[in-house]
């Protein structure tokens, strides 16, 4: 054991190519030399910036006047790596997107890593590298962080009822983010009025179905990929277009159904959406059918739902479509004053049904 520990401490920064068999041990979280070595060798090289490299207890950021937006989120996805992304990319994009839909320009993130004993260092390296890439895309810096190690959990089902993915050892990430509230954003749910247009920025359900398909060992002709992406660039375009955006939300857990149910309930308005207008990839439709899942309540990690004044719908759509992440943006419905407040779907065959907030996580059906 000792030699293994020593070899890890001794390894200089950057020597990441020969670590295939090396794994996280409990002592990596002890706060001593081994922890410092881990951070120096496996975290800093990829994320380095002035604030982080100082390795202080916190980061000092210059802050111009104006409002600051703060958010935090924790990431516990299995499998850690999936088609289209991994937990690292998710941890950056999820927090960046929460800031962006609040109308903030993301500035800096904190990064809390909770590693499980036994996690291969090469997996950690890949995930930290992915964090670096996503942070670059989003134009944010990781300015402070923390690393802890927990004992290896017994092979057991996760809380959401699924078996663990292929990697038996896991990691969790918490990120907090701060951003500057943009001057051009006036996002208040109270400003939503009957007649407003409901817009989504692209195809729905890709992330949730990519993950569920992997967990269920399903393979499809066109492999589904998670849509995980930072939305601050896309949302910046939308706000700069001058369209009167009343409200935004990223459609993560709970999907479109969750977002619209919230809006309907909190604002006391009804929402009518048109199934044939909702962008869905054929592979996603197929996967949802196989798994018995509802596309509307399946998670996304790179899609925004925007409620926009009707007169500005076209302008908003043009702005979104002009960005690579918004090419399939579409107006999918509108706010109405029907009471009691409900979300109603006009189906492809011109039938109607109610859309409700999902209750907990959907499980694939038996047959």
């Amino acid at each position, binding site marked *: 054991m000792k030699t293994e520990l020593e070899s890890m401490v001794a390894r200089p920064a950057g020597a990441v190519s020969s670590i295939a068999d090396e794994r996280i041990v409990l002592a990596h979280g002890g706060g001593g030399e081994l922890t410092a070595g881990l951070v120096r060798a496996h975290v800093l090289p990829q994320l380095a910036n002035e604030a982080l490299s100082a390795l202080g207890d916190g980061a000092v950021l210059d802050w111009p006047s104006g409002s600051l937006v703060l958010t935090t989120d924790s990431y516990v996805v299995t499998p850690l790596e999936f088609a289209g992304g991994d937990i690292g990319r998710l941890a950056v994009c999820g927090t960046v997107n929460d800031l962006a839909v609040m109308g903030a320009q993301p500035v800096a993130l904190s990064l809390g890593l909770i590693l499980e004993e036994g996690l291969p260092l090469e997996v950690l390296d890949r995930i930290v590298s992915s964090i670096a890439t996503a942070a670059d895309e989003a134009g944010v810096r990781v300015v402070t962080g923390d690393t802890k190690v927990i004992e290896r959990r017994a*092979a*057991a*089902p996760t809380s959401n*009822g*699924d*078996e663990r993915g292929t990697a038996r050892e896991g990691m969790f990430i918490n990120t907090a983010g701060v951003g500057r509230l943009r001057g051009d954003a006036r996002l208040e749910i109270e400003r939503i009025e009957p007649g407003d247009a409901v817009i989504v920025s692209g195809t729905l359900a890709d992330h949730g179905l990519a993950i569920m398909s992997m*967990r*269920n*060992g399903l393979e499809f002709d066109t492999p589904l990929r998670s849509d995980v992406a930072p939305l601050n660039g896309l949302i910046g375009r939308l706000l700069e277009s001058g369209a009167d955006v009343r409200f935004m939300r990223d459609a993560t857990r709970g999907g479109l159904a969750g977002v619209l149910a919230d809006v309907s309930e909190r604002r006391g308005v009804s929402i*009518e959406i*048109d*199934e*044939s*207008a909702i962008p869905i990839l054929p592979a996603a439709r197929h996967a949802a*059918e196989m798994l*018995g899942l*509802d596309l509307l309540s399946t998670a996304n990690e790179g899609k925004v739902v925007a409620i926009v004044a009707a007169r500005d719908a076209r302008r908003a759509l043009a702005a979104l479509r002009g960005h690579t992440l918004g090419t399939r943006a579409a107006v999918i*419905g509108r706010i109405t004053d*029907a*009471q*009691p407040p*409900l979300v109603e*779907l*006009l*189906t*492809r*065959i*011109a*039938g*109607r*049904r*109610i859309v*409700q907030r999902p*209750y*907990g996580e*959907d*499980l*694939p*059906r*038996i*047959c």
Partner: protein
Amino acid sequence: MTACVPPSFAAMRSELEARCARIGRRVQVMEVCGTHTVSFFRSGLRSMLPANLRLVSGPGCPVCVTAQRHIDAAIRLAMEERVIIATYGDMLRVPGRMGSLERRRAAGARIFVINSARRALELAREHANETVVFLAVGFETTAPATAATILEAEREGIENFAVLMCHKLVVPAMCALLDDGPKDAARADSDHTAGSAAGAALDGFLCPGHVSVIIGSQAYRPIVEVHGKPCVVAGFEPMQMLAGLVHLARQIEEGAARLENVYEGVVSPDGNAVALELMRRVFVEADVAWRALGVIPQSGLELSPRYRRFDAMRRFGIVEGDDEDDPACRCGEVIQGKVEPAQCPLFAGRCTPLTPIGPCMVSSEGTCAAWYRYGRAMKEAAR
């Protein structure tokens, strides 16, 4: 807003509308399968049917028809030392007399959610010092996979593997409903004081596509020949479901009872020979208990003598108990089509998907869950 409506869809809709109008009374069709129940809601087709056509959900949701005594047995097994339970996800939250598997798991029981019988056997290989008990639930759709797994366990000498047999057969349950209920929907309607018995009078069956792939369309012959009820096998796309209803309406209007198949590309008359042979090798038909329907003769499967050592009840000496369902819960009548979910006093009150009391509220394919999730009725009452 516009929706994409294929012309033949509109034509079929008008035909269904016209035929139901000519029949001139309430027409009751049972969709046997939970996937049909959900597809009718999800596609919106349910909202487009003629006013006098009533869809009645049948006993085709595997979780919903599992008797409480089997849930209790599963929980007893979960409490055994060195036992791992391997189950499909839907079963986790069904309440038994001693709570649900989900609660047992939170209390430390080793319960794994899996998506195939084969995965249960893999778990047995991975945990050689424990016994993996697979909860074998479902109709003919999942039973062949259970059979194949047991053969594999035998071939490889994997002895730390057992199954709790809950497999059921679709056609005997359909026959039992007909034996039990009023025979003539037209008469039941004419003298209907809307008693609960009248609710079960059926004009025909929309037969489940998935199960029929295995058992073949000919399996429904007894329904047509003995009970004189039209049967149409249909898939799960709105077009196919609508076509199924049109074919049923034609027969009902003519007073005919034929076996028809509008899912021909997928369902053959004789079914899947390989799957049927697997079942014949490993299982024998048995009288089994259904939720609220009681014991139905020859309606389920148990292990044939050669494979009986894989039976978890025997191996752990667990005796099948009784059912003690919540007296207010009407799941039993719901799966027989005698009442609609909203007629249950617990529906959407004490019993919701978050706090299910009956199994019909647990499974995503359960009738009550579908009504709760997609139903206009209760929401629109308020509008």
